[in-house]
């Protein structure tokens, strides 16, 4: 049986297929079928020939095998410096081998590549900043994921995830109706406390088009309400699109480049349709990475820019605090020691470290940096899809040790993590290691300390 019913080279494009995948509990049948999947070696060789250009070719060729990338990788450190976790080794023994063998590899080898690409690398790109040649294993693992995906070797959850993007244009089964209803519901729910609160849908020429992570409407609708309230207090002229509101990309984690393009184009279409001055995305790292940093390239936008200027939530918050649109009540600043989780996706890979510091200077009295921090921070331990893959749960949990120790060393009990993946990873590490920390997005914290202008307060009873 070369191609399985669930595990095959065809991406999930229909609801029937999606339901079949979902009903295969924890991918049992899926992974069984994977054992029989055949490799299309010609296709693999052809893809490599077409897409492996001088940048990666050079990286693979000139790697001095010096080992200076070893300590940069949190997975190497967390696994007691297992030499098999050295970034260069991980990529040379997988992608490097595929290239050397010109795609002539077998099933067991591809499964090993899959396991390496998704359980030994979160594509945090930290190694790239440690290597004297600038060899970025994170970039190459992203590429390897694409090769694996094209041959059907992708973790079950991510086949589903990228299928969701293809079918629902969101990482979860949230339809346009669900989304718009959630917006209306949240506006109604909070209107009593916030007279005039609206979540304006599809308004043209707004100053800000706000976009989210599908988890918010699906599981944490209050997050959407909090965003609305903060925009309301700041007096922003904002809107959300009825379609193209989802910025995340499990397709990026899956290496499903076609789905990546489909997904970001929904957002870009919304930008073109609503013509906002700019776009702001919620507190999610990979959403920003996917839609703002990488997305324009998937979509073929030659200047590498989104159709309208795009900002991460921390950029908006920093600006709102700086310009006084949001004012913090000094007596309500965070007094206890607090630390900040620098997300790889918008800090190392998009350069927003200063925004985070600026925000902390307004809201915290005792801000403690982790070591290392900013561009050089370690991955939370759950990036690149790692959080959500049942097959690699154990490895993920081992990786969390590094973040745990970094946080403990700051002696802060509160961690601000304006990124869904980081937030989850830190929640899980508390659950596993019980170190007594709390974690939070920015929005709920800001709401507790922001000064509400008189005219926005509810009428006294």
């Amino acid at each position: 049986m070369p191609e399985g019913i669930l595990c095959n080279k065809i991406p999930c494009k229909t609801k029937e297929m999606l339901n079949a995948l979902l009903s295969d509990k924890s991918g049992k049948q899926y992974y069984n079928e994977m054992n029989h999947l055949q490799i299309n070696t010609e296709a693999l060789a052809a893809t490599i020939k077409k897409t492996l250009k001088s940048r990666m070719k050079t990286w693979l060729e000139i790697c001095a095998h010096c080992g200076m990338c070893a300590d940069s990788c949190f997975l190497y450190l967390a696994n007691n410096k297992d030499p098999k976790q050295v970034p260069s080794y991980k990529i040379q023994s997988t992608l490097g081998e595929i290239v050397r063998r010109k795609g002539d590899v077998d099933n067991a080898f591809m499964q090993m590549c899959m396991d390496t690409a998704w359980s030994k690398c979160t594509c945090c790109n930290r190694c790239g900043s440690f290597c004297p040649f600038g060899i970025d294993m994170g970039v190459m693992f992203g590429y390897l994921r694409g090769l694996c995906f094209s041959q059907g070797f992708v973790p079950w959850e991510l086949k589903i995830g990228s299928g969701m993007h293809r079918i629902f244009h969101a990482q979860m089964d949230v339809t346009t109706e669900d989304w718009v209803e959630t917006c209306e519901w949240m506006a109604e729910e909070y209107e009593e406390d916030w007279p005039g609160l609206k979540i304006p849908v599809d308004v043209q020429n707004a100053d800000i088009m706000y976009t989210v992570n599908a988890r918010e409407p699906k599981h944490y609708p209050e997050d959407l309400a909090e965003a609305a309230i903060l925009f309301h207090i700041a007096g922003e002229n904002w809107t959300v699109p009825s379609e193209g509101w989802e910025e995340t990309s499990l397709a990026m984690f899956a290496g499903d480049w076609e789905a990546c393009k489909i997904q970001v184009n929904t957002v870009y279409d919304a930008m073109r349709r609503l013509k906002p001055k700019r776009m702001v995305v919620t507190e999610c790292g990979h959403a920003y990475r996917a839609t703002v940093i990488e997305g324009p390239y998937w979509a073929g936008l030659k200047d590498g820019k989104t159709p309208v200027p795009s900002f991460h939530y921390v950029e908006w918050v920093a600006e709102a605090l700086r310009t006084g649109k949001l004012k913090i009540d000094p007596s309500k600043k965070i007094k206890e020691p607090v630390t900040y989780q620098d997300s790889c996706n918008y800090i190392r890979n998009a350069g927003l470290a200063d925004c985070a510091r600026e925000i902390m200077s307004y809201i915290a009295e005792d801000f403690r940096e982790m070591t290392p921090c900013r561009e050089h921070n370690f991955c939370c331990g759950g990036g690149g899809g790692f959080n959500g893959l049942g097959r690699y749960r154990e490895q993920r949990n081992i990786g969390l040790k590094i973040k745990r120790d970094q946080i403990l060393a700051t002696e802060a009990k509160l961690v601000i993590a304006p990124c869904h993946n980081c937030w989850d990873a830190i929640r899980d590490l508390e659950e596993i290691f019980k170190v007594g920390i709390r974690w939070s997005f920015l929005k709920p914290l800001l709401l507790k300390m922001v000064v509400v202008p008189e005219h926005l307060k509810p009428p006294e009873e």
Partner: protein
Amino acid sequence: MYQFVTGPLAWVAFTVFFVGIIVRIVLYIRGLDWQLDRVAYRPHLKYGIKGALRSIFFWLVPFGTQSWRYYKGMTILVFVFHIGLIFTPIFLKGHNIILEERWGFSFPTISERTADLMTIAVIISGFILLLRRIAFPEVRILTTAYDVLIWAIAMAPFITGFVAYHQMGGNYQFWLILHILSGEIMLMAIPFTKLSHFILFFMSRMQLGMDFGIKRGGMKNKGFAW
């Protein structure tokens, strides 16, 4: 023999070396692909150049990057080894005398004593680098026979040169010719082997610098803190 290795063969070696590295540069740049690399090189060239220069500069300075600062011992080894490897042959008196004789130009020179010390530094740091490959599990797992061959190609001109200069091996002429040959082998190996990092270091650093300078934050901040 001496005439041959310092005459026609030297011509061949230098030609292969120079043409080779030019070809590597051209191939590298032609192989860049804005969409596959996901870097809009052309539209934001100014940011790209700034990023590229920063990325090269900080890595050329000892302890100039967090990685160099993190691996202090390795940094000293790498810089001592490479500075000696590149500058000793260029500024060596003996070499420049031949240059002047054959091709009618020469570079400023360093004293023989300095050159001798630099050679010793290259040899010692070279051996420590080799020992490191054996001693550390994280480097051992990466090391291949090819790495050792490359190491030998780079070390040979220094070892033979040292032996010849100090007349240690008995037959001066033999060691001298071996020295010249090994130097020419190294030159010719550069474009075809991993030694191409001689030039591809700059290309690769430039590319990643442009990546960070254009796409990954360089247009919104002061530049990546290498």
